[in-house]
């Protein structure tokens, strides 16, 4: 595409042309109205002059009859000016005046007429006049008129003004359109080339912002924010896949080691059996990690509403707590369940159940206060403002402030937990489930211990 064709196809160019075209029409309209008003005014003044002249002549006629009238007209016709006179007898022959020729029958109508005429000064071209015709007794007719040359000249001036302004507008339109289109186009071209650079893989590139704060700048800023968000997500994704690759290596290595060890030398049958059992155990562990990751991914994608239904959070909380009760007690904890009834919301019972299970499991793993102390796990559900709040608390060592944000990341396990079994996915899943339901998870100091609070927004009708 040539640059001129491109220019012409630019929206800015077309828009500018359209606007200037419209204003040209507007200017023409204004000039037209002015011209029309001026002509009207001239006509009014002309007819007033004719009226006054006619009144004067009427006086003369009353004083001296048709003779006097003829003489006066004869005299006045000789005076320079634009006033026209014509007196005719019953036969239509001119007796006095300065009009040479009129269209046939022009004198038959009484009153104002707008008519062409020829002057008596030797010229033969048609002129125009506004005239009043009076019928006098005995078939005489009197015409008093005024030449309309002034009016025509004013009209001509107006037409010329219109033509000139149209040409002026057209020129201005073309120039303006060219300027705007060039300016806008060059910026859009710059944005486009940035976009292509980004598509080509330079993800750090951003769209240019001119700093004027106009629409294009706002668009560029919005797109840049979007790019930054995408960049964050991609960085997060890369981190997660790095983590996955790294954290799956450990169990895979163990799995491979067991198999290799069994093969290394001749062994007794029970030894093979043990090795195979350990292999299966490791692969089951891997499957669980995959399942947890998939579950997190699904919960984060959020969109699938297949598993959503109205659930009673209190019932889910006490159900899961009750499922864990024997284990909790076996591990030397006291379990306190405090779940209010009727905490209804639309949610995924399985995922919320899994999240609570993960939190209780964490409390059991990391929430022990020590021998002889108050080992307690509190599982509660209640309404708090607009939210349904699920709480799982313990009296263990807790989580330091500095680590509280980090523990939600996938595969993150604090130093103190490294030696114990676990994938580091439990809290990530709980957080993903909360996010999927439009809620949040936060960690608080239980003084002593850790309190995990899952806030899920409840439908308003329940309040």
């Amino acid at each position, binding site marked *: 595409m040539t640059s001129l064709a491109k220019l012409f196809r630019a929206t800015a160019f077309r828009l500018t042309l359209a606007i200037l075209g419209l204003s040209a029409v507007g200017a023409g309209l204004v000039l037209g109205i002015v011209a029309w008003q001026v002509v009207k005014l001239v006509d009014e003044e002309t007819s007033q002059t004719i009226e006054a002249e006619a009144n004067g002549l009427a006086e003369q006629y009353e004083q001296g009859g048709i003779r006097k009238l003829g003489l006066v007209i004869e005299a006045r016709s000789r005076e320079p000016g634009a006033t026209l006179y014509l007196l005719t007898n019953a036969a239509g022959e001119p007796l006095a005046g300065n009009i040479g020729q009129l269209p046939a029958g022009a004198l038959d109508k009484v009153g104002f007429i707008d008519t062409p005429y020829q002057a008596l000064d030797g010229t033969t071209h048609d002129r125009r006049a506004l005239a009043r015709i009076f019928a006098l007794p005995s078939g005489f007719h009197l015409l008093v008129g005024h030449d309309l040359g002034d009016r025509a000249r004013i009209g001509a001036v107006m037409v010329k003004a219109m033509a000139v302004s149209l040409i002026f507008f057209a020129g201005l339109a073309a120039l303006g359109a060219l300027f705007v289109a060039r300016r806008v186009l060059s910026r859009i071209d710059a944005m486009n080339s940035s976009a292509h650079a980004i598509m080509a893989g330079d993800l750090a590139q951003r769209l240019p912002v001119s700093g004027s704060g106009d629409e294009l700048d706002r668009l560029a800023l919005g797109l840049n924010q979007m790019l930054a968000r995408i960049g964050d997500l991609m960085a997060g994704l890369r981190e997660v896949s790095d983590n996955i690759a790294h954290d799956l290596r450990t169990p895979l290595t163990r799995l491979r080691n067991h198999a290799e060890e069994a093969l290394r030398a001749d062994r007794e049958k029970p030894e093979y059996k043990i090795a195979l*059992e350990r292999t*299966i155990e490791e*692969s*089951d562990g891997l*499957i*669980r990690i995959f*399942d*947890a990751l*998939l*579950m997190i991914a*699904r919960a984060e994608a959020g969109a*699938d509403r*297949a*598993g959503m239904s109205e659930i009673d959070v209190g019932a889910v909380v006490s*159900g*899961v707590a*009750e*499922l*864990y009760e*024997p*284990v909790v007690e*076996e591990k030397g904890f006291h379990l306190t369940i405090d779940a209010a009834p009727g905490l209804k919301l639309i949610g*995924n019972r*399985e*995922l919320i*159940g*899994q999240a609570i*299970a*993960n939190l209780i*499991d964490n409390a*059991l793993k990391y929430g022990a206060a020590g021998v002889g102390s108050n080992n307690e796990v509190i599982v509660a559900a209640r309404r708090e403002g607009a939210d349904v709040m699920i709480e799982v608390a313990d009296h263990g060592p807790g989580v330091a402030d500095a680590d509280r944000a980090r523990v939600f990341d996938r595969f993150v396990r604090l130093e103190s937990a490294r030696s114990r079994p676990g994938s580091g996915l*439990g809290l990530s899943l709980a957080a993903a489930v909360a996010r999927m339901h439009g809620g949040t998870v936060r960690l608080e100091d239980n003084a002593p211990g850790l309190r995990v609070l899952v806030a899920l927004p409840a439908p308003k009708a329940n309040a």
Partner: protein
Amino acid sequence: MRILIIEDDRDAAAYLVKAFREAGHIIDHAADGLTGYDLAHEGGYDVAIVDRMLPKMDGLSLIGALRAQKNETPVLILSALGQVDDRVKGLRAGGDDYLAKPYAFSELLARVEALARRRPKGAPEETVYRLGDLMLDRLSHKVTRAGEEIVLQPREFRLLEYLMQNAGKVVTRTMLLEHVWDYHFDPQTNVIDVHVSRLRAKIDRDFDAPMLQTVRGSGYMIRDVAR
């Protein structure tokens, strides 16, 4: 019993056929959806195991077509899609049970056997389960052993009820979690084991012949050892 396996992966199918034959079952195998549908439609199977992604006709459509023909053969869906919502879709399509790949064969076997034992629709429900000197009354919620009443918590009662429903057969931990607690998630720790050992303490401790047995690598089984 007669089992129909519809699975397109040749290795997976061969493994299943061999393992089920070793467990003493009669197996037919179909490698695609249409053949599978024809076989299932002829009837005579106690259970059908259907892969979800099959050539020619996918698993869910196959089950839908069978159900539309009033064929009520119990179907277990075997699928690589193992998330909660996948499972919901599978059961809504007319499947009776759902197992995600990869699975433990013991789990699959236990589930298939439990499916085949299902009471046909419309058959009267037993109100009292008896196993040796152990008796469970589903209406009065009473459990007695050798005439002595055993007091159980509501959940323990349902646990025993499910075990006795499947008396003499292996019941896995996930089956218990699904049927007694109605959860399909991963409980992380041995929650079920502790529940079972509590129940065992109540029904077996004061008696010579323990009925509730742990089946290593699979799950649990309740049976009358006295006989």
